[in-house]
């Protein structure tokens, strides 16, 4: 299973619920406003870093760029993918759980 989160962690609890309800090892892909969780030095950075102990973390590059966030702003350990990479993750990891 792969989880996608499309909500800002500053506004909604989608990322929290995703972390609480995903099994160890399941990858999490941040898309749309969810990408706001990926940048370093924010009030949620520690939470995201802790989640990365259990989950490979990915972020959708086109959504970062659209929001004026550079690849350099992304916290260490988070992998940036494009839509093609999004498709590959879904192929590789099976069922998709979209945390809306």
């Amino acid at each position, binding site marked *: 299973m792969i989880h996608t989160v499309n909500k800002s962690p500053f506004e909604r609890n989608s990322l929290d619920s995703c972390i609480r309800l995903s099994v160890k090892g399941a990858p999490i892909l941040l898309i749309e406003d969810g990408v706001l969780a990926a940048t370093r030095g924010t009030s949620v950075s520690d939470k995201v870093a802790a989640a990365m102990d259990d989950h490979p973390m990915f972020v959708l590059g086109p959504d970062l760029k659209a929001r004026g966030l550079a690849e350099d702003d992304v916290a260490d350990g988070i992998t940036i993918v494009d839509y*093609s990479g999004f*498709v590959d993750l879904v*192929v590789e990891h099976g069922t998709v759980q*979209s945390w*809306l």
Partner: protein
Amino acid sequence: MKFGILVNEGPFTHQASDSAYQFVKAAIEKGHQVMRVFFYYDGVNNANKLSAPQSDDRNLVKLWGELAAEHNVDLVVCIAAALRRGIVEDNLADGFRISGLGQLTEVGIAADRLVVFGD
């Protein structure tokens, strides 16, 4: 691999339909098959041919239709959700068809992956 897609939002309030469109395009480019895109909730507004975005904006209604024509993607609008929102055969855009919610269950069963885009 065979994909099914569920789009829960229209083209003008949320990014969901754009994300779904980009995902579908990428999947097809990689040689995957997209069996069906099912439009539910406000997603049915993606099929409104009367929608007229400004000229400098993308026209998702048209883009979905073109993608369907080019790559034989089945675009299905949920009839119950469509009726609520005034989407009927008269204003249904090219490439879309109106059918029952069972078509969502069906593609869930038939496809290898169902990916949901919503809000």
